[in-house]
């Protein structure tokens, strides 16, 4: 079975608008994976621009919905050229600024220039970093699911993701314990092959700004 052509291949597929049905399904999958970090990003950026005001939940959800649509519509993100988390932070920052301009924010006077605001993107909060990393690992699991046989993924999911013991998994699936161990070994190798692409590791690391 060939390895994916690109890393973060799931995200490349998400934005394939040629297949409209696939696109409909995939934006929801993107949202499932990334709404947590996007909400954390939006909350942190809102606090940064408003002198630590509590972010309104409904407005943040609206920002996240807009960022998702922006991400899917635009053709600017290329995993080979930049980091996903930086791209999403810039999009989120722009939308938060748009929202604050409409709402007359607490520090309205300081919001005078969009470029200045993009430059003043706040540091990533620990919550945002943790949430993004978990979303990235969930993306890796999705990539893995697409590149191994269903039966192998089922065994991997039982043992490695749901914490079912190999013996219990063997009994439930009606196979020998050796089949479970052998499958887990092969799947973990495949997972590490997919994870070894530079983009995954770079996205995982803390951004430099």
């Amino acid at each position, binding site marked *: 079975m060939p390895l994916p052509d690109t890393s973060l291949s799931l995200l490349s597929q998400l934005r394939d608008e040629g297949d409209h049905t696939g696109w409909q399904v995939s934006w929801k999958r993107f*949202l499932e994976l990334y709404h947590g970090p996007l909400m954390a990003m939006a909350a942190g950026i809102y606090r940064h621009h408003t002198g630590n005001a509590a972010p309104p939940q409904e407005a943040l959800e609206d920002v996240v919905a807009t960022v998702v649509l922006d991400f899917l519509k635009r053709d600017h993100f290329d995993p080979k050229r930049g980091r996903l988390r930086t791209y999403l932070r810039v999009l989120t920052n722009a939308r938060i600024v748009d929202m604050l301009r409409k709402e007359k924010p607490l520090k309205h006077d300081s919001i005078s220039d969009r470029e200045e605001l993009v430059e003043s993107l706040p540091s990533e909060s620990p919550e945002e970093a943790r949430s993004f990393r*978990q979303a990235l690992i969930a993306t890796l699991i999705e990539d893995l699911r697409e590149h191994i046989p269903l039966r192998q993924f089922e065994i991997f999911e039982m043992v490695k993701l749901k914490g079912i013991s190999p013996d219990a998994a063997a009994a439930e699936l009606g196979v020998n314990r050796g089949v479970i161990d052998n499958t887990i070994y092969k799947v973990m190798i495949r997972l590490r092959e997919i994870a070894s692409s530079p983009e995954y590791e770079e996205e995982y690391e803390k951004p430099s700004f």
Partner: protein
Amino acid sequence: MKNPLFKRPEEKLSPREEAEITKELADAYRQNEIGEKRPEFRRIVENVEKRILKGKNK
């Protein structure tokens, strides 16, 4: 220290590193499952769906 998940596949992992990877995978999987059930997630999906429909009807 390098996350063991990103070590080259041919590098052998220690039992501790394997356990670390398993924990990270399981945590991410569980958080993703929990996240999909959050009301905020459903509200954002509805928000996006409305905008897509609005765009199509224009």
